[in-house]
């Protein structure tokens, strides 16, 4: 079965899902079409019952995932043991902080929202074959855009109007920040992965400047943060003390993008661009405009994420606002293979792990950043062993 596994193009075939709509010409299949039959032929005749069981697709996939999840947790526990921590205690505290009670589930949804929106920021360009590693900076610029809109209105509009204007401000700022690597890519062929990555650090410096100087709260007594958004500038709390209306923004954006990417002409053009850029060019697609648009739509999503964070959860700009969430979003997008529906699930999973990090800190006294290990292991499992589950014999 190595023929199916070997070609080093793990992303392209998956993006061209065969069920992309009946009206589209499906590309000619490459390699064996039906791996299940091919595997059955490979199998020796003995142990037929066991083989039949093994080749039941559902059983095979289930076994694979149980092994992967088990291995992921086992390796994480091995690192915890090496640090001298009690793995069972750590895992229990992580579970309790992230999913163990209604309040902690709410916290997971709150954390999952910026991850979900940052993941969409990576996913839309990825559909077109572009790497957006700038989600981190686009989230921050979105938060700035939301503040710009809120400051401009200065409480002079109803809450709904204010929030909509803030969302537009966030999306516009995020899109503009994402447009920089896109334009550089299209007009100077600068590698967009690298330029978007460098822009994160510049965005971080902009936020620090705003918090320490430009927008520093005059009554903050040495603390570096902006004024607090209040009243109509905040999403209403819908559940408990912290869960706010903004958690639906990410889910709605995910659903809308799912529809657009799957059913619209634009989504199809993007898929063609991602599948084979030179073919897209030959077919007369406006590659330049399409690439810039894909990055800007992505940036707008991350910008919304930044807006939801300041208008919902945080209320203020802080220098360390959302640190790491752009990267976690990028991971979520790859975890979900850039499919907006699956991204919703991936964001909740990674959001839960991120919330578990604070449990790690409080109860086990470990550094919260250690949960990055668990996230990385999950990603390795999926990137390295998840994708071949349908095409590999064993």
């Amino acid at each position, binding site marked *: 079965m190595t023929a199916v*596994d*070997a*070609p*080093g*193009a*793990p*992303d*392209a075939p998956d993006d061209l899902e065969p069920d992309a709509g009946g009206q589209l010409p499906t590309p000619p299949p490459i390699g064996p079409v039906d791996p299940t039959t091919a595997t059955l032929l490979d199998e020796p005749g003995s142990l037929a019952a066991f083989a039949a069981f093994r080749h039941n697709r559902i059983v095979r996939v289930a076994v694979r995932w149980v092994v992967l999840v088990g291995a992921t947790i086992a390796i994480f526990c091995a*690192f*915890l043991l*090496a*640090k001298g921590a009690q793995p069972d205690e750590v895992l229990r505290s992580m579970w309790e902080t992230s999913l163990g009670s209604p309040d902690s589930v709410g916290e997971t949804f709150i954390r999952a929202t910026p991850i979900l929106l940052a993941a969409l920021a990576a996913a839309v360009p990825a559909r077109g*074959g572009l*790497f957006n*590693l700038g989600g981190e900076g686009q989230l921050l610029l979105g938060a700035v855009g939301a503040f710009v809109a809120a400051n401009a209105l200065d409480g002079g509009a109803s809450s709904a109007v204010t929030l909509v204007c803030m969302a537009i401000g966030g999306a516009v700022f995020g899109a503009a920040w994402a447009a920089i690597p896109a334009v*550089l890519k299209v007009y*100077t*062929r*600068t*590698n967009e*992965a*690298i*330029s978007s*990555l*460098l*822009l*994160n*650090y*510049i965005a971080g*410096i*902009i936020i*620090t*400047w705003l918090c*320490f*100087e430009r927008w520093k709260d005059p009554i903050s007594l040495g603390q570096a943060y902006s004024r607090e958004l209040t009243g109509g500038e905040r999403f209403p709390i819908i559940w408990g003390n912290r869960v706010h209306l903004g958690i639906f923004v990410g889910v709605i954006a995910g659903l809308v993008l799912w529809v657009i990417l799957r059913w619209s002409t634009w989504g199809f053009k993007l898929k063609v661009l*991602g*599948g084979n*850029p030179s073919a897209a060019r030959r077919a007369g697609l406006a590659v330049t405009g399409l690439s810039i648009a894909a990055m800007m739509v992505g940036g707008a999503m991350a910008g919304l994420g930044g807006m939801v964070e300041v208008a919902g959860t945080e209320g203020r700009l802080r220098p360390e606002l959302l640190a790491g969430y752009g*990267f976690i979003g*990028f*991971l979520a997008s*790859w975890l979900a293979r850039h499919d907006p529906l699956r991204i919703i699930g991936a964001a909740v999973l990674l959001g839960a792990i991120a919330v578990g990090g604070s449990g790690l800190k409080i109860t086990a006294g*470990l*550094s*919260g*950043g*250690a*949960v*990055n*290990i*668990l*996230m*990385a*292991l999950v*990603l*390795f499992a999926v*990137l*390295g*062993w998840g*994708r071949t589950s349908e095409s590999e014999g064993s």
Partner: protein
Amino acid sequence: MIEAVLTGAVAGGTSIVFAGLGELTCERAGVINLGTEGSMLCGALAAYVVGINTGSPWLGVLAGIAAGALLASVHAVMVLHRHANQIAVGLVVTFLGTGLTSLFGQDYVGKGVQPLESWAIPGLSKLPFLGTVLFDHDPLTYLSFVAVPLVAWGLWRTRAGLILRSAGEGPEVLEIYGTSARKVRWIALLVGGGLAGLGGAQLSTAATLNWSEGMTVGRGFVAVALVIFAGWHPLKLAGGAYLFSGAIALQLQLQARGWEISRYLLESLPYVTVLVVLALLSNRRIHGGPAALEKVFEG
């Protein structure tokens, strides 16, 4: 002031030179490794911890190299054996590196380490101007002076270098001649990760003399950017690294002299410089790179 800026550029550039040489080695063999940032962090922590516990910064440096190479081997397994996307895996590897260093470095924040003392080279360091700029540094900085031409020589003048570059230009051809491209890339990744770890070790045991979470602040990513901007050539890479660290040194000097410019504007200067130069040079550079790399970016 020029002297102070140039001295700072050389001292601060060393870690980026090493990481960049490592990344260049990987990319010449056809693998882009965004895990360089993670390898630097692991190298920095390992060198710091071993340096404290053994009292010998040199053992620390060796540990740093080993840690960087070990993290890069994760990238190697994922990319060379599991055929996962190089850019995504690289970022995940960096994520793993930040997580591991966050977990294991927690108890070491703010502990002093026995530093790698700087050696003023007798005679040369007394030269006017050049003496302070070039010949009054820690030993790893001198090593980086040697490493840059050595890597250039190794890549273009030795048989091993030819094989390594072939793995990046035409792995199929290499296979026909009976050499496994996968094996060559494995070696390149281990060497590259080791060099990134060495860069991290220099940072923690000779430059900052401290450990803090995420202390490399994107130096590994900058190294990746510099490799492209240098057109995959070691000498130009070193120039780029000194340009980046020179911008940092300039900013520090201007601040110290109380210039009336926002320090935030100055702090963004190094990143903006790299970005602008990268954009200016990219048009000409894209086809100078190893052929196998373009496949990564074209999907």
